[in-house]
């Protein structure tokens, strides 16, 4: 699904202007990463795309459309992966992964996909564990495949690997890329980690500090398949990182708004 964001500004009714004049077109099947300093409004923008902003709390100017429909329209198959663990603590890992299918009234016999994903990310044997019984990395894996299980057409990710250690983070980046190669859905991935933005995105959008505007958009043209473990050592990656960092440096230096 195509996401078009046109002249979007977001302001909290209490007065803070979070996002200013953002225009961005994300074609169907594109993987876009948005990187910016903390507090730059990147998560708010993501919430606006998901149709999850509370209209009593903020005003949105401009237009956001997902395949022509406004955000929050029923029938848009949308997935959202949170930074914080939002697995339901009273459901087992497998029950959590199947939740999106259960909500869509998919009969039990046809929920095989959930089981496949569970073994794909190495969670087999833990299907019947409760979230508190497994590690943070496992919970985040479960959360990722919970979203993939019901095959959304758009996946919005809000710093989903932010709370993980470096090793788990790279493992999950690799898994995400592998799954995206298998099924090219539109992904918008928000992060404050520049390396992560470059490793994952086909395009990297750099945002300024608050009120967040688009400062630069960089295409990531890397040869061959992406492998987060190999990529970081490649000269192309280093060059790109330096170029994007030049855009981002001043925004970071100014400190949180």
């Amino acid at each position, binding site marked *: 699904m195509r996401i078009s964001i046109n002249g979007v500004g977001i302001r909290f009714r209490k007065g803070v202007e979070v996002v200013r004049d953002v225009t961005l077109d994300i074609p169907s099947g594109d993987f876009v990463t948005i990187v910016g300093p903390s507090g730059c409004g990147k998560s708010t923008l993501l919430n606006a795309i998901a149709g999850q902003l509370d209209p009593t709390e903020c005003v949105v100017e401009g237009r956001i459309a997902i395949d022509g429909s406004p955000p929050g329209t029923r029938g848009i198959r949308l997935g*959202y992966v949170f930074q914080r663990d939002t697995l339901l603590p009273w459901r087992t890992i497998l029950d959590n992964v199947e*939740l999106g299918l259960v*909500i869509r009234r998919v009969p039990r016999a046809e929920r095989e996909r959930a089981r496949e994903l569970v073994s794909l990310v190495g969670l087999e044997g833990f299907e019947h564990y*409760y979230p*508190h019984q497994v590690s943070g990395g496992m919970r985040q894996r479960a959360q990722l495949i919970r979203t993939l299980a019901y095959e959304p057409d758009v996946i919005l990710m809000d710093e989903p690997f932010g709370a993980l250690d470096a090793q788990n983070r790279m493992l999950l980046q690799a898994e995400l890329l592998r799954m995206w190669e298998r099924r090219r859905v539109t992904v918008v991935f928000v992060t404050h980690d520049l390396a992560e933005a470059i490793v994952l995105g086909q395009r990297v959008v750099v945002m300024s500090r608050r009120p967040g505007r688009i400062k630069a958009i960089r295409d990531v043209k890397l040869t061959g398949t992406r492998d987060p473990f190999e990529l970081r050592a490649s000269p192309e990656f280093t060059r790109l990182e330096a170029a994007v960092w030049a855009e981002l440096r001043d925004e970071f230096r100014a400190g949180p708004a």
Partner: protein
Amino acid sequence: MNSVRVRHERMSRARLTLQRLGFVAALLLLWEGATGGFGLPPVLEPIIVARPSSAVAEIGAYAASGLLAKDLAATLQATSIGLALGIVGGVAFGLLLGYARGTADTVEPVLIAFNSLPRIALAPVLVIAFGLGITSKIFLAFLTVFFVIFFNTYLGIRSVDPELVKAVRVMGGTRSDLARYVILPSVFSWIFAALRTSVSFALSGAVVGEFVGSTAGLGYRMAISTGLLDTNRTYAILLLLMAIAVTLVEIAKRVENRLLRWRPTSALVA
């Protein structure tokens, strides 16, 4: 490694049980001695504090007279009916007000005032209103339980994690999906956590109701024996009440642990 640790844990568990039994035995022996047992001069007059051996013997006499079965039935009936009604009513009312925020904000101060009132103090009023029969006891047990369950349900709804709600909503969950998969399970964890307190509250409600005015029940029998200075029977009933309370709370604890299996277990829960 693991089996060594398991064995070690089992050993220390067995040891702990032994220590606990030893402590109880020591208390009983001390009590027995202080009340003139083992041919010692009594420090406490047995007419004021019963000797444990006499109290236990009295349980036998009480049972043989046929009164124990009757009183036990009356007390347990009042406790269980009051408990059941209190849980059902508290959950229903809590859900209702939890969803109707406007109404809730209006009536909240009154409910808080009622909750602060020692409900036991309502016993005389209830006996006047509902008579000496079981109804007044059920009502008192109900009231003590109702408020605990009601507040837990109500606060449970108000403290549902908004991130979990959002997660299910973006997945395409409807209002009823939210209720079923997020709100109710979350609220039920609050309700089950209040189960143990509710059980002992219900028992106190029933017994105090029986003290104040009744024709049967453990509380009634105890009030009579106190009046007759029958210390042995009074203490026999106290021991029985303790046994009942421990059993009921243990059942509630098992139910709670079973239903809240998904919760991280605290190391302190023995």
